[in-house]
């Protein structure tokens, strides 16, 4: 066991491969999460848009289809389509992965945010409108900040889900943490220990993030005891 660990982690500075892989994993996750928040906010606002007689606008229909299709198909397929078809001309794997996971995450963020917006008292919007602010102005200054705060735990959870999900990008050759395990096994002819090491690294990062997020949530909650 110790021998296996030595061979898979210490020997020939192989630990560097894991760390580099973890770096890529974190980069892709952070960038995809940022894209997901932006896309998700936009998709959510469009998705909730209605005409005066209560019908969906064109933008609303597009947002609905986006959210529905993304949530209704496997991430792996979305990634493969992005890699092989939509961005077949780009060989920048990080960029392709960020796009695929960002677009994927956006659909989930849109739904999380919708829940957040719906949990804000409608009186907040009414008060803003009664002062002469537009729906949009009130949304930005009053409703969205409260909505983000309400669904903050779910958004952090989405970040962790995203971090784990990026591991499937190793299938298209992204040199992330999972891919690092593959590479090591190719030179040691042993797969279990590298996978175990990669899993442990994912687990530690996620554990640390969870603890940080919990602290953050608690601080947020303490700031509005009612």
């Amino acid at each position, binding site marked *: 066991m110790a021998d296996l660990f030595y061979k898979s982690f210490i020997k020939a500075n192989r630990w560097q491969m894991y760390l580099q892989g973890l770096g890529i994993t974190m980069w892709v996750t952070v960038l995809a999460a940022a894209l997901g928040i932006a896309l998700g906010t936009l998709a959510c606002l469009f998705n909730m848009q209605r005409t005066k007689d209560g019908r969906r606008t064109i933008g609303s229909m597009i947002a609905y289809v986006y959210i529905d299709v993304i949530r209704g198909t496997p991430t792996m397929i979305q990634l493969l389509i992005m890699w092989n078809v939509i961005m077949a001309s780009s060989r920048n794997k990080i960029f392709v992965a960020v796009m695929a996971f960002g677009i994927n995450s956006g659909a989930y963020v849109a739904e999380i945010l919708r829940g957040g917006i719906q949990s804000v008292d409608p009186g907040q919007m*009414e008060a803003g409108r*009664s*002062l002469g602010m537009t729906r949009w102005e009130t949304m930005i200054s009053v409703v969205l900040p409260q909505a983000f705060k309400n669904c903050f735990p779910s958004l952090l959870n989405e970040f962790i889900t995203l971090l784990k999900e990026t591991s499937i990008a190793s299938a298209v050759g992204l040199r992330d943490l999972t891919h690092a395990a593959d590479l090591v096994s190719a030179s040691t002819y042993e797969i279990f220990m590298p996978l175990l090491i990669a899993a442990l690294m994912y687990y530690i990062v996620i554990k640390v993030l969870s603890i940080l997020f919990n602290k953050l949530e608690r601080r947020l909650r303490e700031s509005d005891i009612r």
Partner: protein
Amino acid sequence: MTSANTQQDTPLLRVRGLKKDFDENHVLRGIDYDIYKGQKIVLVGPSGCGKSTFLRCLDMLETPTAGEVWLGDTMVNDPKTDINKIRQRMGMVFQHFNLFNNLTIMGNITLAPVKLKIMTKEEAQEKALQLLRRVKLEDKADAYPHQLSGGQQQRIAICRSLEMNPDVMLFDEPTSALDPEMVGEVLDVMTELAEQGMTMVCVTHEMAFAKKVANRVIFIDEGVIKEDAPPDEFFAHPKNARLQDFLSKIL
């Protein structure tokens, strides 16, 4: 009172044939009314009679099904009218205060005038402090709404509306959600506002307030105005049978 000599002016608010349906439910069945500058109108009636709906139709928080609402020479419910400009001239105070939970008291009061570029941030803050002094809450400028009592929140909500320099203030049961010991502090602010000449339309169950402040008290029942009289007459000699019944239950 002032109502006698303001009667000759054109009304500030003019309501004609106002109807509002919620699906099959005909809440307002045709209301005509004129409100003149400086008048204080109090609306009473059983719950569900449409008095809040009437108030909310005045600044289009509810869209009237039929009829017209005029503020000065602008038709409020004309689709071509910029409703946001109208609402800047009409303050609304809600039963549940609806202070912005994510903003401080100062942020609550100054958000709209600064966002809408009516005042600079400094002007808005200076005026906000004056208003806060008037309601004796200047030390709460940096507090958040959830740190204040209901009565304090409602006084802040009144400040938030007054910050916009409205032509008329609408009050939708401003004391109904308050603990009894906090009703007085809010009514005091409203009374003071009335004495300073603000045009006010109030939906309230506070009959003592109506007697003291109102120029006219209106009884709405079954979606129409059943009685409209000065407070003395309204409470002492109600003509409408439903109003007599209503008053006997609440007084």
